[in-house]
């Protein structure tokens, strides 16, 4: 079951690569939240109930509901155009993300350690690198945040791999999640939208040497 969910997660990454509209990104994020909820639920069923509740709450409330709504709000409030404005054509993005997945898959084959199930490793690493790729190739600042959230999801999956033995790490992951998203989005909603009218990356390239 976990494997199925994780594979669906990976497919969502592929979909992410060809998404044009920001709204699609947000929907995919929400969808990923739901998948993570499922994975966490199955994987962490043995840990203590309070902790489990926290994890599940985070995935379902924060990742699937709060953040997507918040993003939507920001886009509306700052009148950001709907297009994701990639530097590269979507086709290439698709190829790159596919490549990322293939490479991580091949890479994980070389791991000899058996204590960790490899699927977590593959999926999370693909998610992390896809997130980084999205950050690097999209023009808007808001897409950076979106990319970052994808990375977060990847990290969350990775933390689930040791979740039963070290639930603390999962909690930390959640903390990171909340902290970073709230903070980044907070700055966004408060300041960047006010100060910079057109929220393009080029606006933030003044500080350089």
């Amino acid at each position: 079951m976990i494997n199925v969910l994780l594979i669906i997660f990976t497919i969502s990454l592929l979909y992410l690569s060809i998404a044009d509209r920001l709204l699609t990104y947000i929907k995919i994020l929400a969808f990923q939240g739901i998948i993570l909820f499922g994975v966490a639920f199955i994987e962490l069923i043995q840990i203590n109930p309070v902790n489990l509740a926290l994890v599940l709450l985070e995935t379902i409330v924060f990742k699937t509901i709060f953040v997507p709504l918040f993003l939507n709000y920001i886009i509306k409030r700052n009148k950001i155009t709907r297009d994701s404005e990639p530097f590269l054509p979507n086709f290439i993005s698709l190829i790159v993300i596919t490549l990322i997945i293939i490479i991580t898959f091949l890479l994980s084959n070389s791991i000899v350690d058996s204590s960790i199930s490899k699927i977590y490793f593959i999926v999370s690493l693909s998610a992390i690198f896809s997130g980084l790729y999205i950050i690097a190739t999209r023009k808007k600042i808001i897409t950076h945040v979106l990319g970052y959230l994808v990375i977060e999801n990847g990290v969350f999956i990775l933390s689930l791999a040791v979740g039963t033995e070290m639930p603390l790490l999962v909690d930390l992951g959640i903390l990171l999640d909340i902290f970073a998203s709230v903070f980044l989005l907070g700055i966004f909603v408060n300041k960047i939208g006010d100060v910079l009218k057109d929220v393009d990356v080029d606006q933030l390239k003044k500080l350089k040497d």
Partner: protein
Amino acid sequence: MIGIYLPGAFIIGGLLLVNRNKMLSNLLVLAFLVLQWIFTVYEYRHINITEFNYFKLDALALLLLITLSIIAIPAMYHSHIYLTTKKDTPRNSAIYYAATVILLTTLSAAYLSNHIAVTWIFIEMTTLSASALIYHRRNNRSLEGTWKYVFVCAISITFVFIGILFLSFSLQHRGGGGLTFDALLTNAATINIFWSRLAFIFIFTGLTAKLSLVPMYTAGIDAKDKAPSPAGALFASVLMNVGFVGFFRIYIVFANTSLHSWTNHVILIAALLSIFVATVYMVKVKNIKRMLAYSSIEHMGLIMLGIAAGGIGYYAAILHLILHSFIKSSIFFQVGQVYRVYKSKSIYDVGNYFKYNLTGAIVMLLCFIWVTAMPPSGLFISELMIFRALFQSHYIIVMVLVMFFLTMIIWAFGKNIFKLLFAPPVGFDDSNVVKINPVESISQFIFLGLIVYLGINPPVEFVTLIQETIKNLPK
């Protein structure tokens, strides 16, 4: 004691945030400093005792905590001057003070924490408070700086987290206490090489954002540039140290595994690239604060070289770290005065500082001498030892390269500093130059003296503490 300190400091921070009364905020800041010092002294008396499972004050933490407590006083003093001369709104001042207090508190906690995850949490929190300081001026550029800092730090903190996860993979027994540094050290021999290799590279890369090293040094530059000078002083000293703490504790673990020489190579490459980048930009930049920020990169590179070289280099690295904190903070304090005189940080707008602020100019001159590690600066001693360590570990080419880069840096640094000090400024109206009270430079003089003292004639306790810090490293 940390149980009292942390809540206390956070309460003071919270009060500062809501308080709008000038008098009261001064008192609160004072109260914080007193608390900080009581905490420091208490911890000094109770070394190597674990508190709340996750906090343990070892020698490194003690050294850096004392450094922080010492720097905190002039930092607050100069912040006070900065805010009063700028006539900031009470709200902004409140945020500034609160952020500074929180920053210092989280830094202290991060130094003390004995668990990698706890360290991680506090490092994350420093990003938070630091960003409030960077955004203090509330203009486009500072917003940009803040955004970049937060974003890059967020990514890097994620890297660290990934590294921690990998580290947990590598453990044989994944118990609750498995990730304390002590436990890691005792289990170092049984660690899984594949995962720990990944862990190290991710943790190291993540921490370079705080450490100001290649590859993630970039945002730190903007932060030090855009933050007000007293805050810049904290960024360039104690905030960098927190990165070092995180790095060094994990390095001790890896030094006791079979990955030791590999980690040394990684560090060496990062250090060399850092010094190179610092050189490239020191030659180029015309903004004094950015130049200083690059100089921090250079010094961190040197410290890492010391670590990578090993032997006497360990001692030198710790010494260099502490001395660098003092010198960099005092030079940043001084830049604050420069900014008040010229209303600019650009090297094109400043000049003849000697005429407008004699004491400040002398401090600046001495700072230049100290920071470029010319005798009688204590940094000279640490650099000498680093070079000696490089020599002894047969990194002679590295040594020659570094010496070459350092020469270029001195040239570039000197060119700008002497432009500031001696060359007449272009288009500067000196009819109503702000007079700066020489008293404001006392802290810098004290720091300069301290650097010489610690460098040339270190007290026995200081040496023992450093020896204690590095005792777990292989010889």
